[in-house]
């Protein structure tokens, strides 16, 4: 890896850690339910980016970029397969992230609905007031 690559990689790792910390702070410390939910989506997106990063592949050669994991010839020769193996990106993390995004959508939608219901019942989304009301 060149120095620029190393620097960019470190920036990426640092931003992942920072994102996780900020979003966890948001979930646990912010009083408003909507802000908690926004922080939750940031947290799950951080996890998703981390998963995508696991499938990262450095550029095999300077002039050839990584390719999608699809064989474009119908009758591949041995050299086709070799170059495919050297350049194709791992597709599994992307499949995992797709699944996780869909699940995250369902959870977020459910939590937003519950927040609406909390607002209808308590006329506030501030968790401190909600637990005070309960007594």
């Amino acid at each position: 890896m060149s120095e620029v690559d190393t620097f960019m990689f470190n920036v990426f790792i640092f931003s992942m850690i920072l994102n996780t910390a900020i979003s966890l702070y948001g979930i646990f410390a912010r009083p408003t339910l909507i802000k908690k939910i926004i922080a939750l989506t940031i947290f799950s997106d951080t996890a998703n980016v981390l998963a995508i990063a696991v499938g990262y592949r450095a550029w095999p050669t300077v002039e050839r970029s990584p390719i999608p994991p699809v064989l474009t010839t119908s009758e591949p020769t041995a050299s086709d397969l070799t170059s495919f193996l050297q350049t194709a990106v791992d597709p599994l993390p992307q499949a995992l992230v797709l699944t996780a995004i869909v699940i995250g959508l369902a959870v977020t939608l459910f939590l937003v609905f519950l927040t609406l219901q909390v607002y209808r019942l308590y006329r506030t989304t501030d968790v401190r007031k909600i637990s005070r009301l309960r007594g």
Partner: protein
Amino acid sequence: MVYLLSVGLLVPSLIGLAFVLPLIGIFVRNVKFFHAYASLASLYALATAAYNFHIVLSEGVKAYPFGGWWPPIGISYEIDEVNALIALLTTSVMFLITLYSAWYIKDLKSAPYYYTLLLGLEVGMLGCIYTGDAFNLFVMLEVMSISAYALVGFHRSKPEAVEAAIKYGLFGAVATTLYFIGLVFVYGSFGTLNMADLVNKVTFGISSASGTYYGQIHAATAVALALSLWAFTFKSAVFPNHFWLPDAHPEAPTPVSAALSGLVVNVGVYAIFRFLYTIFSPYSIVSELRDVMLLALLILGLASGFVGAFMMAVQDDIKRLLAYSTVSHIGLVLVGLSIGISIAAHPNTPAYVNGLSGALYHLINHSLGKSLLFLASGVVIFMAGNTRRLDEIGGVARRNPLLGFTIIVGVLQLLGVPPFGGFFSKYLLYSSYVEAGMPYVSVMINAISAISILGYVRLLYAALFKTPRTREVPKVNLTPLTVLLALAILCIATGVLSGSITEWLRWIVGRTASEQGIFNYWFYGYYLFWGR
């Protein structure tokens, strides 16, 4: 045959049966139909799980690869003796809970949605239990959790229920996301998420169809295990992650409280078992990490045992009292599960086998006893005129001898009084730690039981021994009482047959948590498909 169809059939077909219900609800306007439909669906689940259990006992470990994609590539479900047993327990208690729901849910408007969520919860639990794929465990954990959040907030015009649901949902989503990050670490270092393939690499060190492992696997495994165990202990409500349970479980509709307290918490315990005794087993290359994890689990288990037992004594809400008792009992199960610490017991020593079979036995006893008590408390609350406060219940169970009998059976079961199963499982846990040379843990198990007497006596006094204020109580029809009686008979059976059950559980533990068991899990889940 290499695979068993009924393993893969159960979960997808039950999902179909569950999610077609709201559609049926548009056309069918008879509430009896939904009761019958849900009961038949869960009877079908029970029959299939029993069949799977029978096949596994007679023929050994079975797997099913979905869509014909063989193990490391596609999702596969794999059952050995332990998860077949837990699935049988889950489906049989769920069947009784569904029958009971017919009495509890009376209006047509909510019935289809209620049963959709209840069957969804059952599907999620069965998926978590049957799955042989760590990522599918995440998906099924979410299926189970979303159903559980929605069921907790089912009475959506009740402020407390909505508040408990959002508390549970928000932190539950964080927990499952942490498990997902753990999976990212597992995938990054081992290149696979299939459990049998993980065993392949971690224990046998064979490079497989998905390559070998990469990078510093010890560091990656430590992070992955810490994150996933955090998620599992959250799902099974172990101290300090128990804070949501005493809010969420009492606010749910009563049959759902029974399912959440009796069965959903088992899933986390089962996942811990699968991770620490099959995948990252004592024979694996990362076995030295297990000691730290198991020691942490032992301490957390004892702590939640004490916290649950103490908090039980100060509750004035009957369902909240039972919820804290769940925290205490799951703590005890975890204590049994952490017997694998190498300073305590090496594999195949009597202490090891006793501890694990004690944990399994206690899991079964707790599921039966706790769902019995929650369902009985539903009847008590109904008879006392919809109050959950212990001092307002006023001995209504006296007006119904059968109800009183089942409450006594449930309390004695959870308390651990000799003729009942709870005693024998606590005794197994006790003796395993004595044999392992850690008698202070045994003493603490006894202390937890002793402290929890306070809470149970308050429950018995309020429901049964107090003089009722009124002679007039509403009549309860036969359905809930039959369910209660069935559960009470099961509770008595776990105690009366304790000798043979103990022997049988020892046999199961010997077949799953041993070197042979891990070999079988790998052989039938991976090697049989690729090795030939």
